[in-house]
C-alpha cells in the first residue's frame, strides 16, 4: 500500500491511516468487501464481492468520476468512502457519497472521520451539494450523516431491491456546501 494521506485516531484511541484508493489496492478492496457480513452486503448498491464491480470502481477513479478514501489498519482496509460526481449534465456540481465501515470498527467514529475527509474533497472540487442515498435498513448511514448536516429530502417507497430481490424504501439525504 502507498503512503497515507493522514493518520487519525478512533474513539478507542487506536490510530489508523487514511489513503486514496488506487489500482494497487484492488485485492485489498475486494477482500474488505468480501469480509463484510452478508447481512450488510445485501443492502449495498452494487455487489462489491464481484471482481468486475471492483474493476468498474477503479476505472471510475481513473476516469476522474470518483474519489475513494479508505481507512487502513495493519495493512487491511477497514473503511471505504466514495465521492462520485458526474462530469457533465445537471448533476456536475452535486456529489454523491457512499461509505462502508468494517463491522469490527463500527461505533468508533470511523464513519464520521471518512465522511469529513470526503467533504474536504468535495469542497476542493467546488461542489455545491452532496447527496447520499440508503435503504431504510441502513440506519447507520443516517446516524453518521445527520449530525454532519445532512437533511432528509425524501423517501421513495419500495423503490429499490437488495441483492436478494427484496424491495426497500430509498432514503434521500442532501447537504448544501455553499
Amino acid at each position, binding site marked *: 500500500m502507498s503512503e497515507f494521506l493522514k493518520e487519525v485516531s478512533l474513539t478507542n484511541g487506536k490510530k489508523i491511516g487514511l489513503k486514496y484508493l488506487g489500482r494497487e489496492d484492488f485485492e485489498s478492496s475486494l477482500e474488505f468487501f468480501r469480509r463484510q457480513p452478508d447481512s450488510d452486503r445485501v*443492502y*449495498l*448498491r*452494487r*455487489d462489491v464481492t464481484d471482481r468486475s464491480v471492483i474493476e468498474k470502481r477503479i476505472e471510475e477513479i481513473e476516469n476522474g468520476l470518483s474519489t475513494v478514501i479508505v481507512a487502513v489498519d495493519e495493512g487491511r482496509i477497514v473503511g471505504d468512502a466514495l465521492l462520485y460526481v458526474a462530469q*457533465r*449534465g*445537471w*448533476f*456536475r*456540481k*452535486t456529489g454523491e457519497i457512499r461509505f462502508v465501515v468494517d463491522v469490527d470498527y463500527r461505533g468508533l467514529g470511523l464513519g464520521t472521520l471518512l465522511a469529513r475527509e470526503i467533504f474536504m474533497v468535495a469542497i476542493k472540487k467546488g461542489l*455545491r*451539494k452532496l*447527496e447520499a442515498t440508503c*435503504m431504510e435498513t441502513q440506519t447507520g448511514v443516517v446516524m453518521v450523516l445527520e449530525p454532519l448536516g445532512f437533511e432528509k*429530502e*425524501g*423517501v*421513495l417507497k419500495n*423503490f*429499490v*431491491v*437488495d441483492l436478494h430481490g427484496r424491495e*426497500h424504501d*430509498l432514503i*434521500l439525504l*442532501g447537504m*448544501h456546501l455553499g
Partner: protein
Amino acid sequence: MVSESSRTKYLKDGTAVIVREKTLDDLDASMQFYASMPEQERELMRIDVTDRSVVEGRLMEIEKGNFFRLVAEVEGKFISEAILEDLRYGWMRRTGEIRILILPEFRDTDLARIITREIFLNAARRGLNNLIARVLDGETWMYDTLKKLHFKHEATQKRHAVDLHDNQHDVHLMTFSLSGMWQDIENAILESIASPREY
C-alpha cells in the same frame, strides 16, 4: 437491446404520427428538433443540445443497449423524443428513468400519452418495476404532463442541479409504479370476470 419496429399512430385530430426507435442516422433530424424547442426549455436540458458533437455523443449511447430512444415524426420532422434509461444494475436494477420532449404545437394533443405508452411497454419488456423522472423547477410543462400521466411527486431536492449556465435549480422527483399499474389491470380484469355486465 430491445428492438422496436416503426408504427403509425393517429392523434385525435387524425394526424398520422410515425413512432419509431431512434437510430444513429438521426443526428440531423435531432439537431433540427432541438432547434425547434423553445430556447428557455433548451437551456434547462441536461446537455447542450445546440452542440452537434454533444448530441452525437448522446446518440452513440444507443449502442450501449441500456437506452431506449423513441422518436415521433410527422412528414419526416421530429415532433417528440422520449428516452428510457434502464438503470440496470445494483439496487436500481428494476428502475428506469424517463424523459419526454414534445414540440409546443403538439402538447395539447394526446401525443404524450401515446409516447408514454410505448415507453411503458418497453419498460415492461425489460422487466422494470418502477420509473423515475427528474424534473427541474422551471420545467412546468414536463411536471404537469407527468402528473396527468399519473406520475407521483415524491420529493423535491433543493438546489440539487445546475443548468447550462451554472444556475442552481430544485429537482422534483416523480415516480410511476409499473408493477402497480399491472396489478390494477389484473384487478380490473378479475373484477369484470367476477361480476360480468349484462348487455
